[in-house]
Protein backbone atom coordinates (compact mmCIF):
# COMPACT_ATOMS: atom_id res chain seq x y z
CA UNK A 1 0.00 0.00 0.00
CA UNK A 2 1.34 3.46 -0.91
CA UNK A 3 1.31 6.39 1.49
CA UNK A 4 -1.22 8.69 -0.14
CA UNK A 5 -0.10 12.08 1.16
CA UNK A 6 2.86 14.30 2.02
CA UNK A 7 1.84 14.49 5.68
CA UNK A 8 3.73 13.12 8.67
CA UNK A 9 2.98 13.27 12.42
CA UNK A 10 5.20 16.38 12.68
CA UNK A 11 3.32 18.27 9.95
CA UNK A 12 0.02 17.29 11.57
CA UNK A 13 1.17 18.82 14.87
CA UNK A 14 2.33 21.98 13.08
CA UNK A 15 -0.97 22.19 11.20
CA UNK A 16 -3.02 21.65 14.35
CA UNK A 17 -1.11 24.34 16.26
CA UNK A 18 -1.43 26.74 13.33
CA UNK A 19 -5.21 26.25 13.25
CA UNK A 20 -5.49 26.72 17.00
CA UNK A 21 -3.45 29.93 17.14
CA UNK A 22 -5.09 31.33 13.99
CA UNK A 23 -8.47 30.76 15.68
CA UNK A 24 -7.30 32.77 18.70
CA UNK A 25 -5.98 35.59 16.50
CA UNK A 26 -9.31 35.88 14.64
CA UNK A 27 -11.31 35.92 17.90
CA UNK A 28 -8.96 38.46 19.46
CA UNK A 29 -8.79 40.64 16.34
CA UNK A 30 -12.58 40.83 16.01
CA UNK A 31 -13.90 40.64 19.56
CA UNK A 32 -11.20 41.23 22.19
CA UNK A 33 -8.77 43.93 21.02
CA UNK A 34 -10.04 47.50 21.25
CA UNK A 35 -10.56 49.85 18.33
CA UNK A 36 -7.69 52.27 17.69
CA UNK A 37 -8.03 55.83 18.97
CA UNK A 38 -7.56 57.29 15.45
CA UNK A 39 -8.21 54.45 12.98
CA UNK A 40 -11.18 52.95 14.82
CA UNK A 41 -12.10 49.40 13.81
CA UNK A 42 -9.97 49.36 10.65
CA UNK A 43 -7.02 48.52 12.92
CA UNK A 44 -8.41 44.95 12.93
CA UNK A 45 -7.10 44.56 9.38
CA UNK A 46 -3.57 45.16 10.69
CA UNK A 47 -3.56 41.79 12.53
CA UNK A 48 -3.74 40.08 9.13
CA UNK A 49 -1.80 42.64 7.07
CA UNK A 50 1.40 42.94 9.12
CA UNK A 51 1.99 39.17 9.70
CA UNK A 52 1.46 38.43 5.98
CA UNK A 53 4.10 41.04 5.12
CA UNK A 54 6.59 39.67 7.65
CA UNK A 55 6.02 36.08 6.51
CA UNK A 56 6.50 37.11 2.89
CA UNK A 57 9.89 38.60 3.89
CA UNK A 58 10.70 35.39 5.80
CA UNK A 59 9.71 33.29 2.79
CA UNK A 60 11.92 35.23 0.38
CA UNK A 61 14.88 35.14 2.79
CA UNK A 62 14.36 31.36 3.14
CA UNK A 63 14.34 31.10 -0.66
CA UNK A 64 17.66 32.97 -0.84
CA UNK A 65 19.31 30.89 1.91
CA UNK A 66 18.17 27.59 0.34
CA UNK A 67 19.33 28.81 -3.07
CA UNK A 68 22.70 29.73 -1.54
CA UNK A 69 23.10 26.16 -0.20
CA UNK A 70 21.99 24.78 -3.57
CA UNK A 71 24.66 26.84 -5.35
CA UNK A 72 27.31 25.87 -2.77
CA UNK A 73 26.59 22.18 -3.47
CA UNK A 74 26.56 22.87 -7.22
CA UNK A 75 22.93 21.69 -7.36
CA UNK A 76 24.05 18.07 -6.76
CA UNK A 77 21.15 17.56 -4.38
CA UNK A 78 17.84 19.14 -5.36
CA UNK A 79 16.41 19.33 -1.83
CA UNK A 80 17.53 22.93 -1.24
CA UNK A 81 16.17 24.05 -4.59
CA UNK A 82 12.81 22.48 -3.82
CA UNK A 83 12.67 24.30 -0.47
CA UNK A 84 13.60 27.55 -2.28
CA UNK A 85 10.79 27.10 -4.79
CA UNK A 86 8.19 26.08 -2.22
CA UNK A 87 9.09 29.02 0.02
CA UNK A 88 8.83 31.48 -2.88
CA UNK A 89 5.40 30.11 -3.82
CA UNK A 90 4.11 30.67 -0.30
CA UNK A 91 5.88 34.06 -0.14
CA UNK A 92 4.18 35.27 -3.32
CA UNK A 93 0.78 34.29 -1.91
CA UNK A 94 1.48 36.13 1.35
CA UNK A 95 2.81 39.18 -0.50
CA UNK A 96 -0.37 39.27 -2.61
CA UNK A 97 -2.42 39.20 0.58
CA UNK A 98 -0.25 42.01 2.02
CA UNK A 99 -1.00 44.17 -1.03
CA UNK A 100 -4.74 43.42 -0.97
CA UNK A 101 -5.28 43.86 2.78
CA UNK A 102 -3.05 46.96 2.76
CA UNK A 103 -5.12 48.42 -0.04
CA UNK A 104 -8.37 47.84 1.89
CA UNK A 105 -6.83 49.34 5.04
CA UNK A 106 -5.53 52.28 2.99
CA UNK A 107 -9.01 53.07 1.68
CA UNK A 108 -10.33 53.28 5.24
CA UNK A 109 -7.42 55.18 6.76
CA UNK A 110 -5.72 57.20 4.03
CA UNK A 111 -8.84 57.57 1.90
CA UNK A 112 -7.32 55.82 -1.12
CA UNK A 113 -6.76 52.21 -2.24
CA UNK A 114 -3.41 52.85 -3.87
CA UNK A 115 -0.70 55.48 -4.27
CA UNK A 116 2.69 55.24 -5.97
CA UNK A 117 4.52 56.01 -2.72
CA UNK A 118 7.90 54.40 -1.89
CA UNK A 119 6.59 51.59 0.37
CA UNK A 120 3.70 50.53 -1.85
CA UNK A 121 5.75 50.73 -5.03
CA UNK A 122 8.74 48.78 -3.71
CA UNK A 123 6.39 46.13 -2.28
CA UNK A 124 4.67 45.76 -5.66
CA UNK A 125 8.09 45.51 -7.30
CA UNK A 126 9.12 42.78 -4.85
CA UNK A 127 5.91 40.87 -5.63
CA UNK A 128 6.42 41.14 -9.40
CA UNK A 129 10.05 40.00 -9.04
CA UNK A 130 9.03 36.78 -7.28
CA UNK A 131 6.20 36.12 -9.74
CA UNK A 132 8.95 36.28 -12.37
CA UNK A 133 11.11 33.95 -10.27
CA UNK A 134 8.30 31.37 -10.11
CA UNK A 135 7.72 31.67 -13.85
CA UNK A 136 11.42 31.09 -14.55
CA UNK A 137 11.29 27.97 -12.36
CA UNK A 138 8.60 26.54 -14.62
CA UNK A 139 10.35 27.20 -17.94
CA UNK A 140 12.79 24.27 -17.74
CA UNK A 141 11.58 20.75 -17.27
CA UNK A 142 15.01 19.57 -16.14
CA UNK A 143 15.25 19.99 -12.34
CA UNK A 144 18.99 20.77 -12.36
CA UNK A 145 18.65 23.46 -14.97
CA UNK A 146 15.69 24.84 -13.01
CA UNK A 147 17.87 24.98 -9.86
CA UNK A 148 20.83 26.71 -11.50
CA UNK A 149 18.73 29.38 -13.24
CA UNK A 150 16.39 30.23 -10.39
CA UNK A 151 19.03 30.33 -7.64
CA UNK A 152 20.74 33.30 -9.32
CA UNK A 153 17.46 35.23 -9.38
CA UNK A 154 16.69 34.31 -5.76
CA UNK A 155 20.07 35.53 -4.54
CA UNK A 156 19.63 38.87 -6.33
CA UNK A 157 15.93 39.39 -5.55
CA UNK A 158 16.40 39.10 -1.78
CA UNK A 159 18.37 42.36 -1.86
CA UNK A 160 15.07 44.16 -2.48
CA UNK A 161 13.78 43.32 1.02
CA UNK A 162 15.86 45.90 2.95
CA UNK A 163 14.84 48.44 0.31
CA UNK A 164 11.15 47.67 0.92
CA UNK A 165 11.45 47.66 4.71
CA UNK A 166 13.49 50.86 4.96
CA UNK A 167 11.73 52.68 2.10
CA UNK A 168 9.68 54.59 4.68
CA UNK A 169 12.91 55.81 6.32
CA UNK A 170 14.93 56.38 3.14
CA UNK A 171 12.20 58.41 1.40
CA UNK A 172 9.10 60.33 2.39
CA UNK A 173 6.20 57.96 2.19
CA UNK A 174 2.45 58.03 2.73
CA UNK A 175 2.88 54.72 4.54
CA UNK A 176 3.72 55.07 8.22
CA UNK A 177 7.08 53.95 9.62
CA UNK A 178 7.30 50.54 11.30
CA UNK A 179 5.65 50.32 14.73
CA UNK A 180 7.72 47.35 15.92
CA UNK A 181 10.79 46.72 13.77
CA UNK A 182 11.74 50.40 13.59
CA UNK A 183 15.09 52.18 13.72
CA UNK A 184 14.73 53.53 17.29
CA UNK A 185 13.65 50.20 18.80
CA UNK A 186 10.44 51.54 20.40
CA UNK A 187 7.24 49.51 20.22
CA UNK A 188 4.30 51.77 19.44
CA UNK A 189 1.42 49.40 20.13
CA UNK A 190 -0.76 48.92 23.20
CA UNK A 191 -0.29 45.61 25.07
CA UNK A 192 -3.20 43.51 23.82
CA UNK A 193 -2.81 44.85 20.29
CA UNK A 194 0.86 43.85 20.36
CA UNK A 195 0.07 40.39 21.78
CA UNK A 196 -2.54 39.75 19.07
CA UNK A 197 -0.13 40.92 16.40
CA UNK A 198 2.59 38.67 17.84
CA UNK A 199 0.14 35.73 17.92
CA UNK A 200 -0.65 36.43 14.27
CA UNK A 201 3.03 36.25 13.40
CA UNK A 202 3.38 32.91 15.26
CA UNK A 203 0.25 31.48 13.57
CA UNK A 204 1.29 32.58 10.09
CA UNK A 205 4.84 31.31 10.65
CA UNK A 206 3.43 27.86 11.48
CA UNK A 207 1.19 28.02 8.39
CA UNK A 208 4.23 29.01 6.33
CA UNK A 209 6.28 26.07 7.67
CA UNK A 210 3.39 23.64 7.03
CA UNK A 211 2.87 24.88 3.49
CA UNK A 212 6.58 24.89 2.62
CA UNK A 213 7.06 21.32 3.88
CA UNK A 214 4.08 20.06 1.89
CA UNK A 215 4.85 21.99 -1.30
CA UNK A 216 8.51 20.97 -1.15
CA UNK A 217 7.40 17.34 -0.90
CA UNK A 218 4.99 17.90 -3.76
CA UNK A 219 7.87 19.09 -5.98
CA UNK A 220 9.85 16.04 -4.85
CA UNK A 221 6.95 13.80 -5.90
CA UNK A 222 6.69 15.58 -9.23
CA UNK A 223 10.44 15.17 -9.90
CA UNK A 224 10.34 11.53 -8.73
CA UNK A 225 7.35 10.81 -10.94
CA UNK A 226 9.46 11.76 -13.96
CA UNK A 227 12.32 9.48 -12.81
CA UNK A 228 9.90 6.61 -12.08
CA UNK A 229 8.34 7.15 -15.51
CA UNK A 230 11.78 7.10 -17.13
CA UNK A 231 12.76 3.93 -15.23
CA UNK A 232 9.54 2.26 -16.35
CA UNK A 233 10.24 3.24 -19.97
CA UNK A 234 13.78 1.79 -19.79
CA UNK A 235 12.44 -1.44 -18.26
CA UNK A 236 9.79 -1.67 -20.97
CA UNK A 237 12.44 -1.12 -23.67
CA UNK A 238 14.65 -3.81 -22.17
CA UNK A 239 11.72 -6.25 -22.01
CA UNK A 240 10.84 -5.38 -25.59
CA UNK A 241 14.41 -6.06 -26.75
CA UNK A 242 14.85 -9.30 -24.84
CA UNK A 243 11.55 -10.50 -26.34
CA UNK A 244 12.96 -9.64 -29.79
CA UNK A 245 16.18 -11.63 -29.08
CA UNK A 246 14.30 -14.75 -27.91
CA UNK A 247 11.85 -14.58 -30.83
Amino acid at each position, binding site marked *: MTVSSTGTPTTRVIGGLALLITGWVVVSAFFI*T*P*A*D*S*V*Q*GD*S*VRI*MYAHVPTAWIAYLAFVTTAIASGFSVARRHRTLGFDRVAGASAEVGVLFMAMTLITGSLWG*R*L*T*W*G*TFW*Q*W*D*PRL*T*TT*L*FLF*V*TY*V*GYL*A*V*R*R*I*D*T*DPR*QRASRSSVIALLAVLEIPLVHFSVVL*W*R*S*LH*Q*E*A*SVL*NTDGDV*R*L*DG*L*MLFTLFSGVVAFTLIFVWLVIHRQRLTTLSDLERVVGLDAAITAR*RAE*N*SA*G*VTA
Partner: protein
Amino acid sequence: MDLTPREVSEAPRPRRRILPAVVAVLAAVGGLAVVAVFLTSSVDYYCNVDEVGVRDGCADDQRLRVQGNVDEGSLQSRAGQTSFVLSFNGVSLPVDYEGEPGGVFQECIPVVAHGRVVDGILVATRIEVKHSNEYKAENADRLDQAEKTACS
Protein backbone atom coordinates in the same frame (compact mmCIF):
# COMPACT_ATOMS: atom_id res chain seq x y z
CA MET B 1 20.75 -7.00 -26.47
CA ASP B 2 19.93 -4.70 -29.38
CA LEU B 3 21.07 -1.22 -28.47
CA THR B 4 20.78 0.38 -31.87
CA PRO B 5 19.02 3.71 -31.52
CA ARG B 6 15.42 3.85 -32.60
CA GLU B 7 14.61 5.97 -35.62
CA VAL B 8 13.11 9.27 -34.62
CA SER B 9 11.64 11.89 -36.91
CA GLU B 10 13.78 14.66 -35.39
CA ALA B 11 16.43 14.97 -32.72
CA PRO B 12 14.94 15.40 -29.22
CA ARG B 13 15.45 18.91 -27.90
CA PRO B 14 15.40 20.00 -24.28
CA ARG B 15 11.81 20.78 -23.37
CA ARG B 16 10.93 24.32 -22.46
CA ARG B 17 7.51 25.58 -21.61
CA ILE B 18 6.12 28.62 -23.40
CA LEU B 19 3.54 29.96 -20.90
CA PRO B 20 5.97 30.39 -17.96
CA ALA B 21 8.41 32.11 -20.34
CA VAL B 22 5.67 34.56 -21.34
CA VAL B 23 4.82 35.17 -17.66
CA ALA B 24 8.52 35.74 -16.89
CA VAL B 25 8.79 38.33 -19.69
CA LEU B 26 5.57 40.01 -18.51
CA ALA B 27 6.94 40.13 -14.95
CA ALA B 28 10.15 41.74 -16.21
CA VAL B 29 8.20 44.32 -18.22
CA GLY B 30 5.83 44.89 -15.27
CA GLY B 31 8.77 45.37 -12.91
CA LEU B 32 10.33 47.95 -15.21
CA ALA B 33 6.97 49.73 -15.53
CA VAL B 34 6.64 49.88 -11.73
CA VAL B 35 10.14 51.38 -11.42
CA ALA B 36 9.40 53.86 -14.21
CA VAL B 37 6.14 55.03 -12.61
CA PHE B 38 7.89 55.31 -9.24
CA LEU B 39 10.73 57.42 -10.60
CA THR B 40 8.52 59.69 -12.71
CA SER B 41 6.08 60.36 -9.85
CA SER B 42 9.05 61.56 -7.73
CA VAL B 43 10.87 59.36 -5.26
CA ASP B 44 9.96 61.49 -2.23
CA TYR B 45 6.20 61.29 -2.04
CA TYR B 46 5.59 64.82 -0.74
CA CYS B 47 6.97 68.25 0.13
CA ASN B 48 6.40 69.62 3.62
CA VAL B 49 4.49 72.90 3.92
CA ASP B 50 7.63 74.84 4.86
CA GLU B 51 9.42 73.59 1.71
CA VAL B 52 6.86 74.86 -0.82
CA GLY B 53 8.63 77.32 -3.09
CA VAL B 54 11.92 76.72 -1.26
CA ARG B 55 13.11 73.17 -1.86
CA ASP B 56 14.08 71.68 -5.23
CA GLY B 57 11.06 69.90 -6.74
CA CYS B 58 8.65 71.86 -4.53
CA ALA B 59 8.21 74.95 -6.74
CA ASP B 60 4.82 76.53 -6.13
CA ASP B 61 4.03 76.92 -9.85
CA GLN B 62 3.66 73.16 -10.37
CA ARG B 63 1.35 70.42 -9.15
CA LEU B 64 2.43 69.41 -5.66
CA ARG B 65 1.80 66.93 -2.89
CA VAL B 66 2.04 68.90 0.35
CA GLN B 67 2.27 67.36 3.81
CA GLY B 68 1.38 69.07 7.07
CA ASN B 69 -0.90 68.94 10.11
CA VAL B 70 -4.49 70.14 9.91
CA ASP B 71 -4.66 73.14 12.27
CA GLU B 72 -7.07 72.89 15.19
CA GLY B 73 -10.19 74.96 14.62
CA SER B 74 -9.36 75.58 10.96
CA LEU B 75 -11.62 72.93 9.44
CA GLN B 76 -14.72 74.25 7.71
CA SER B 77 -17.19 72.41 5.50
CA ARG B 78 -19.67 74.40 3.46
CA ALA B 79 -21.77 73.34 0.45
CA GLY B 80 -19.55 70.41 -0.40
CA GLN B 81 -16.38 72.52 -0.07
CA THR B 82 -13.81 71.69 2.64
CA SER B 83 -11.34 74.31 3.81
CA PHE B 84 -8.58 74.01 6.40
CA VAL B 85 -5.10 75.23 7.19
CA LEU B 86 -2.12 72.94 6.81
CA SER B 87 0.94 73.70 8.97
CA PHE B 88 4.43 72.31 9.34
CA ASN B 89 7.51 73.73 11.11
CA GLY B 90 5.70 77.02 11.84
CA VAL B 91 4.67 77.63 8.22
CA SER B 92 0.99 77.50 7.24
CA LEU B 93 -0.85 77.05 3.95
CA PRO B 94 -4.63 77.38 3.49
CA VAL B 95 -6.21 74.50 1.56
CA ASP B 96 -9.48 74.39 -0.42
CA TYR B 97 -10.88 71.02 -1.43
CA GLU B 98 -13.99 70.25 -3.46
CA GLY B 99 -15.75 67.47 -1.55
CA GLU B 100 -15.27 65.66 1.73
CA PRO B 101 -11.89 64.04 2.40
CA GLY B 102 -12.06 60.30 3.03
CA GLY B 103 -10.17 58.06 5.43
CA VAL B 104 -9.81 59.21 9.04
CA PHE B 105 -9.51 62.88 8.07
CA GLN B 106 -9.88 65.24 11.05
CA GLU B 107 -8.15 68.16 12.72
CA CYS B 108 -4.69 67.70 14.28
CA ILE B 109 -3.77 64.87 11.93
CA PRO B 110 -1.05 64.84 9.27
CA VAL B 111 -2.39 64.82 5.73
CA VAL B 112 -1.01 64.99 2.20
CA ALA B 113 -2.90 67.34 -0.12
CA HIS B 114 -2.45 67.07 -3.91
CA GLY B 115 -2.98 70.23 -5.94
CA ARG B 116 -1.70 73.60 -7.14
CA VAL B 117 -1.04 76.80 -5.23
CA VAL B 118 -3.29 79.57 -6.58
CA ASP B 119 -3.04 83.02 -4.95
CA GLY B 120 -1.47 81.55 -1.83
CA ILE B 121 -4.13 78.84 -1.43
CA LEU B 122 -3.54 75.19 -2.22
CA VAL B 123 -6.44 74.15 -4.43
CA ALA B 124 -6.48 70.43 -3.70
CA THR B 125 -7.92 67.71 -5.88
CA ARG B 126 -7.06 64.91 -3.50
CA ILE B 127 -6.53 64.58 0.26
CA GLU B 128 -4.84 61.60 1.90
CA VAL B 129 -4.45 61.03 5.62
CA LYS B 130 -0.93 60.15 6.70
CA HIS B 131 -1.43 57.91 9.70
CA SER B 132 1.24 57.77 12.40
CA ASN B 133 2.87 54.49 13.44
CA GLU B 134 1.26 54.61 16.92
CA TYR B 135 -1.62 52.33 17.80
CA LYS B 136 -3.55 53.15 20.97
CA ALA B 137 -6.77 51.74 22.35
CA GLU B 138 -9.84 53.91 21.98
CA ASN B 139 -11.14 54.63 25.50
CA ALA B 140 -12.52 57.42 27.63
CA ASP B 141 -9.25 58.27 29.40
CA ARG B 142 -7.41 58.52 26.13
CA LEU B 143 -10.14 60.69 24.59
CA ASP B 144 -9.99 63.11 27.54
CA GLN B 145 -6.23 63.25 27.29
CA ALA B 146 -6.40 63.67 23.53
CA GLU B 147 -8.81 66.60 23.88
CA LYS B 148 -6.53 68.29 26.41
CA THR B 149 -3.43 67.87 24.29
CA ALA B 150 -5.04 68.25 20.88
CA CYS B 151 -2.58 69.37 18.22
CA SER B 152 0.18 69.79 20.83
